[in-house]
């Protein structure tokens, strides 16, 4: 049995939405190098809709796949919906993750939330 599902390997090998948005409306970075995972999310938001999203990730296969899947799940969605993204939804969309890799999906959820909070803060200031 392979370590990861086909979906995980697909998103790991061909990650969607990789890169940087220079004039992002919200940026979030979570994790730390000590633990071996860092995710950074960039959001472009217009009329409370996520028009574009990009990510950069330092981490293992499931961290990269989780980042990629999380961006796919929120792209084009209203901010309010994106705020509700859970790690479970990310892991399920990837056809599951090994137990000891579930924290990668948690990190993806936190990265999205962190970028959305940054957007809210900028909007209100």
């Amino acid at each position, binding site marked *: 049995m392979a370590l990861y599902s086909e979906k995980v390997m697909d998103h790991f090998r061909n990650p969607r939405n990789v890169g940087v948005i220079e004039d992002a409306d919200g940026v979030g970075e979570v994790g730390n190098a000590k633990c071996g995972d*860092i995710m950074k999310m960039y959001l472009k938001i217009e009329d409370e809709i996520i028009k574009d999203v990009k990510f950069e990730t330092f981490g*293992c*296969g499931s961290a990269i796949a989780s980042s990629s899947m999380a961006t796919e799940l929120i792209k084009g969605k209203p901010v309010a919906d994106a705020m509700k993204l859970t790690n479970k939804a990310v892991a399920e969309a990837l056809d599951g993750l090994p137990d000891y890799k579930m924290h990668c999906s948690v990190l993806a959820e936190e990265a999205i939330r962190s970028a959305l909070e940054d957007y809210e803060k900028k909007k209100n200031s």
Partner: protein
Amino acid sequence: MIYADNAATTKMSDAAAETMLYVIRESYGNPSSLYAVGQRAKEIVEDARRDIASAIGAEPREIVFTSGGSEADNQAILSAAELGKRSGKTHVISSAFEHHAVLHTLKKLEKQGFEITLLDVHEDGIVRPEEVEAAIREDTCLVTIMYANNEIGTIQPIREIGAICRKHGVLFHTDAVQAVGHIPVNVVDDNIDLLSSSAHKFHGPKGVGFLYARKGVRLSNLIEGGAQERGKRAGTENVPGIAAMATALKEAEAKIIENSALISEKRDRLIRGLSEISHSALNGDKQKRLPGNVSFCFEGIEGESLLLLLDDRGICASSGSACTSGSLDPSHVLLAIGRVHDVAHGSLRLTIDETLSDDDVDYIVSSVKEVVGYLRGFSPIWRDLCAGKKQFIL
């Protein structure tokens, strides 16, 4: 496929596989039985014991067959501890980067009241004999230092450490799992009292190994039962495994000098190629290392994703990153030589054998370069390092 993970396990040699199959089919008797097919199996076991003893300069009666390196490590250490305890000696010296079969056994002893000193292995991954001597106390019963490290391949000054132990009357054990069959090992010349070895690391089968215990060093049993192995290791002998282990070791010993020179050349070609990758570093001393070991750290990337993408390119390798170990911490070996967490996560170990061609070496180098470059391309750490927001370590 390019198999470059020979420190994890090796492919069985054809001759070893044939020996194994032959014994399974033809000599299935129990060596403890008195009829011919049993006695034939006994002969096979004793022939293997003689061949293995001769390969490391030991006497046949000094070899005990085990299920592998871990069992041999456990039995060696626990036996020495038992002997020490009887004379009130409860101090053990080891190093910070031993295999877990050693470290976890020492942890167990610590819980029983033993005191453990773990020596520094320095940035080059080499234990200093003078530091071993300085650490020896009145109550030291055992020094256990590996012959060569399994992750970074550094070869330890075993002969010097052995001489120091002998001078002070302290037992010396070495976990030689990565060394036997790869570099010449002689228990007499090297002043070794106890030595562990495993067949599947030298093109033998899995699930079998041996423990050398110098005559006069009394072993305690891990497994109680029948009188096999002079009463020191109960259980019907793994006859096919033992026979195939002897075949593999004889084969390895016959070409050890020639092979280690050949493999070292390929290793150095690999090291030269990988050194061209910016912000990378070889782990462990460049010269005092196993012929087939190449261990690198690449800044800004994580090891597991590197391994998966190398696997896609048909290259089997390993890493000391946390994600490949299933814990949050990267390899204790890389931390012991002073690599910080961020860097240790980006490690790659390639352990090669003589079947690797120069073209394979060049293919590995170009593949690693490509994958490291690709992963750095979307690594937020790499971006920060390049933007000067963080300092490069390597």
